[in-house]
């Protein structure tokens, strides 16, 4: 699903985000990206969501060659991804269900069946009862669940979560993690960047640890095989 092959990323200001990074995430895997600030977690995520292009090497996500994508092709890749950030990024003037429906509306989904898809996503994250509420009426954990529902409503095969528990207390963090486990159990690839090692510990999921833009530990390291995609 996701393949990095000898990827380096240098930003226009000269900062080197990644150095010769290679890994492969197959279908259905749950992966933690860990490391301190500036270790390269966000650089990896930004390459996966095609926010940036690699300076060297090859990045393939769900069959899309990120380095060669034209601006018109980027939306096609992003429709295969669900993306969640630490700061939720919800629209305050829209209700919970409207926030979730937004992801369908702006990608041109048919109106028929839209509300049932929205309710299904909200049910999945445990917020079906708060569909008519507004984000500011919800707790931080609930707001993050809305963000997850929005990310999942298009049934993406890959879910990218950048520090999704960074703004949450311990209880909400546990809840979000359980939600991610459920999502992954349905076959969705989950890539979660976090510096919260308490979340990672003893989960049994694959951990890729980064430092100075390089992979210093990969619990699921395997020989880089040819991607069937």
């Amino acid at each position, binding site marked *: 699903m996701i393949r990095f092959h000898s990827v380096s990323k240098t930003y226009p200001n000269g900062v080197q985000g990644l150095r010769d990074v290679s890994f492969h995430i197959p279908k259905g895997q749950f992966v933690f990206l860990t490391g301190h600030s500036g270790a390269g977690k966000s650089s990896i995520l930004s390459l996966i969501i095609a926010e940036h292009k690699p300076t060297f090497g090859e990045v393939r996500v769900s069959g899309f060659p990120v380095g060669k994508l034209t601006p018109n092709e980027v939306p096609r*890749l992003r429709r295969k991804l669900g993306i969640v950030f630490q700061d939720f*990024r919800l629209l305050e003037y829209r209700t919970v269900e409207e926030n979730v429906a937004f*992801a369908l*509306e*702006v*990608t041109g989904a048919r109106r028929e069946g839209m509300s049932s898809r929205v309710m299904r996503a909200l049910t999945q994250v445990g917020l079906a009862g708060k569909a008519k509420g507004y984000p500011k009426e919800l707790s931080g954990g609930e707001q993050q669940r809305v963000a997850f529902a*929005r*990310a999942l409503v298009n049934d993406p095969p890959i879910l990218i979560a950048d520090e999704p528990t960074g703004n949450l207390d311990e209880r909400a963090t546990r809840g979000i993690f359980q939600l991610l486990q459920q999502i992954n159990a349905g076959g969705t690839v989950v890539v979660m960047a976090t510096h919260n090692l308490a979340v990672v510990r003893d989960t049994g999921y694959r951990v890729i640890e980064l430092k100075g833009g390089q992979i210093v530990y990969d619990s699921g390291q395997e020989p880089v095989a040819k991607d069937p995609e």
Partner: protein
Amino acid sequence: MRLPPLLRESIRTFRRTPLLSALSVASISFSLFTIGLFGLVALNFRETLHKLAERVEVVAFVLRGTPTETISVASQDIQAFPEVLEVRFVSEEQALARARIELVEFREAYRDLETNPLPASLEIRLKPEFRNAANAQQVAERIRGFPFVDDVRFGRDWVQRLDRLRNIAAVVGLVIGLAFAIVAIVIIGVTIRITVLQRATEITIMRLVGATNQYIRGPFLLEGTLKGVLGGLLAVLMCWVAYLLFRGTTGELGNSLVFFSPVQLLLGVTFGTGIGLLGSLLSIGRHLRHV
């Protein structure tokens, strides 16, 4: 009735941010109003110059005793000049009668005359596009070649002055008009940019969930266009009110003032619409390159 999604989204933005939307429309309308006021001044100035230019004519004084047939044939020849609109023959008697009416201070002197001192003449009016010193001079030179012509006059000095005035007016009008237009475009651009920035989160989310740039641009372009149309219509209304107020306070002079023609008004609103659309296009384009 179900509105198209694009229009629904634009109207939704207007409703959600009424103050910002009203400010955008107000800034567009005031910018266009400024241009409109300048346009009105320029229009009336041009109209005045046009009226002055109508007086540009070449007068050929005819030698006494010239047969009427000769003058008649020559009149037809002169009428055929490409610059000439109309040739009018003024006999000696007509010239005297006119002088008695127009030159009031010499009325007594003209009344007691035993012989008419005024010559007959051909008054030659030029077509509007030839009413300048260079063309009047050319026509005068050609007419001077007719043997029965005693003298030719066209008020060289004031026609040249009129030419200079027209040139100055054209340059000043162009420079100030352009300056006003640029200021309007900048103000409108900034206003629309504020709208875009205010919706930065929304745009970011749209991009992240896979909305195409065309889809993201759509509501902004429509919104900018709607604001341009509204701003343009408001500017027209403000210009009309200003025109009426000015007309009302200037008495006699006010009656000769003119307002924009329907075509010019339509052009003004189209200009506002274009600026709204262009401002949105540039602002959203710039924003999309950076998110």
